[in-house]
């Protein structure tokens, strides 16, 4: 099962390598990983997507919690949550294609953030599924380059992950 684990950890050098090292050391897989400092500069927030059965995920969270740098963590997929990923894509767009691409961007509520006479750079945010669907809608022949940020997530309602 796909899980989104959100980790609050000390913003210390070496902390990220301990998290990543744990995953390779214990044979867990990482689908995506994002990390950045929070409003409190001493803390980083890391969001990780992993796949595993309940037993494996329990081990993942227990071992993450064991890392001295990890302050707190939550498995967002256990409750109702919001997940977002950012996609930047360079799309070949000339002649009649330009309108067609623009229409797809509108349908997926994306924005064109850069433009030349032959291409658009498009930004789309949403769930991973939505981004997949957008790329599919564009059709492979028009895509020049794709960059995805990996998933960020937050719980719905008043539940927060904080110190």
């Amino acid at each position, binding site marked *: 099962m796909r899980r989104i684990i959100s980790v609050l*950890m*000390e913003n210390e*050098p*070496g902390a990220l*390598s*301990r998290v990543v*090292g744990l995953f390779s*050391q214990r044979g867990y897989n990482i689908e995506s990983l994002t990390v950045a400092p929070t409003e409190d500069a001493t803390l980083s927030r890391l969001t990780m997507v992993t796949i595993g059965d309940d*037993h494996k995920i*329990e*081990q993942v969270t*227990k*071992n993450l*919690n*064991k890392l*001295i*740098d*990890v*302050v707190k963590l939550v498995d967002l997929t256990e409750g109702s949550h919001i997940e977002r990923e950012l996609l930047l894509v360079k799309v070949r767009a000339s002649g009649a294609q330009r309108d067609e691409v623009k229409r797809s961007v509108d349908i997926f509520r994306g924005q064109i953030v850069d433009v030349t006479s032959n291409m658009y750079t498009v930004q789309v945010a949403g769930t991973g599924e939505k981004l997949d669907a957008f790329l599919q809608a564009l059709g492979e022949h028009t895509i020049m380059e794709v960059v995805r940020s990996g998933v960020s997530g937050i719980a719905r309602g008043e539940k927060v992950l904080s*110190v």
Partner: protein
Amino acid sequence: MELLSGGDMLVRALQDEGVDLIFGYPGGSALHIYDAIFRQKGIKHVLVRHEQGATHAADGYSRSTGKVGVVLVTSGPGATNAITGIATAYMDSIPMVVISGQVPSDKIGEDAFQETDMVGCSRPIVKHSFLVKNAEEIPEVVKKAFYIASTGRPGPVVIDIPKDVTNPADRFPYRYPEKLRMRSYTPAGKGHSGQIRKAIALLLSAKRPVIYAGGGVVQGEGAGLLTELAKRLNYPVTNTLMGLGAYPGSDKRFLGMLGMHGTFEANTAMHHADVILAVGARFDDRVTNTPNKFCPGAKIIHIDVDPASISKTIVADIPIVGTVQSVLSEMLEMLKSSEEQPDQSAIVDWWRQIDDWRERHGIYTAPRYRTDGAMIMPQEVIRAVYDITEGDAFVTSDVGQHQMFAAQYYLFDKPRRWINSGGLGTMGFGLPAALGVKIAHPDKDVVCVTGEGSIQMCIQELSTATQYHLPVKILCLNNQALGMVKQWQEMQYEGRLSNSVYEESLPDFVKLAEAYGHLGVKIERREELHDKLHEAFAIKDRTVFIDVYVDPSEHVYPMQVMPNGSMRDMWLSKTERT
């Protein structure tokens, strides 16, 4: 406030932490620190002959005392040589602080002379690590390192210090922190009372209970409480390799060790148990054999300070996260105030069954090795040493057949007396560990049980024993081959002895010992075994290397059947199977 250089600060911080002993080896990046050590009196430094020896010696010191072992090495090869010893300590949850010199900050990443990324190299085998960026951090880093190493599930912590940080020319105000607050680290304390109550109810309902106690009981100072609990309930106890001594080995409720080379009665009792109380044990693969065949009828109560150990390989029915001490004392209180009693008639039947198993194949009810041959049997050497030392020696061991014979035949009545590399299985551990033990217990018999293979992996420490006058006994069960490897090759590879024999290349250990200034004794004939052992053990002021030629064809039994065996599937001899 007092102004100190980084090097002096480090040494002062260690003193303020109560450290009085360091095992180490100097080198370029650590020289400022070594100079600071030279200029002080509170800390004794033991110069080993190889950094691996320093880590094992600190480890032996820690295991025999409960204190944190401290190691100091230089950068590069000094640091990487320490890796095996750090991994050994990590696998067995031994508190250790390893301080490594590092190349100067401005050289880091430039492939400088003797540079290695110690924090990176050691990352998978430490509980935590620090790279010190400036001297002012040193007191707090030291404080944190000792706190992390010694609390919760203990383990090694590395402090990597670039040379410029210890520069004697730069001085900073020194103050050792009295208290620590770490928001990201809160080791487990008391167990959940509701869970403990449930555990008591299950324990009292048991008809075929077994208490399975591991190294956590030794490390967590829970041996006294565990013994009280088992005696109160009159339940059988088995110890893991790491847990030997957590329950008195000579008590009648002790079934012996369990697992791959566990006793017939311990493994069979586990297999048939209806309730297992696991305390400070981690259901290691050398204990469980095939996990899905493990103890099919048992409900499992698992007490451990490390939540990640619980339900890792075997799912616990009642998990209890907490220190062994606090959980066991709460259990005892509940038992004392409880009106419920164990089912006496079921327990009597259970003991009758266990005694029958003991009678049939137990290694303590009759010798299960040849007693009428001309060759010395390794088991009888251990029994003889047990008798001579009255069961009260500190016994360190290396890894292999001799380790298993020692674990089976030397009955430990006290915790911290049996010192071996259980998790990592590090050959070369025994001798330096024995030196660490001897420093802590100068008036006690310290015996390193080893083999002619293992001893050669850290034999250079014979020189350390000379320098610091550490009179230990080295008991080499010499079977002229890598015995355990050979045993597997004979059992599973049709006797193809691939690289497990030395072809007449073994040194003369008696002469070797003498070359280092020690005594050497060679024992080859069965009839001289007892007299020569007595003579050797009567010598208290010299290190004695006792080279005993044992039957090279002997195997360690029982041995669980692998793969796909359950706890109770064992070879009992070369021809007998359960």
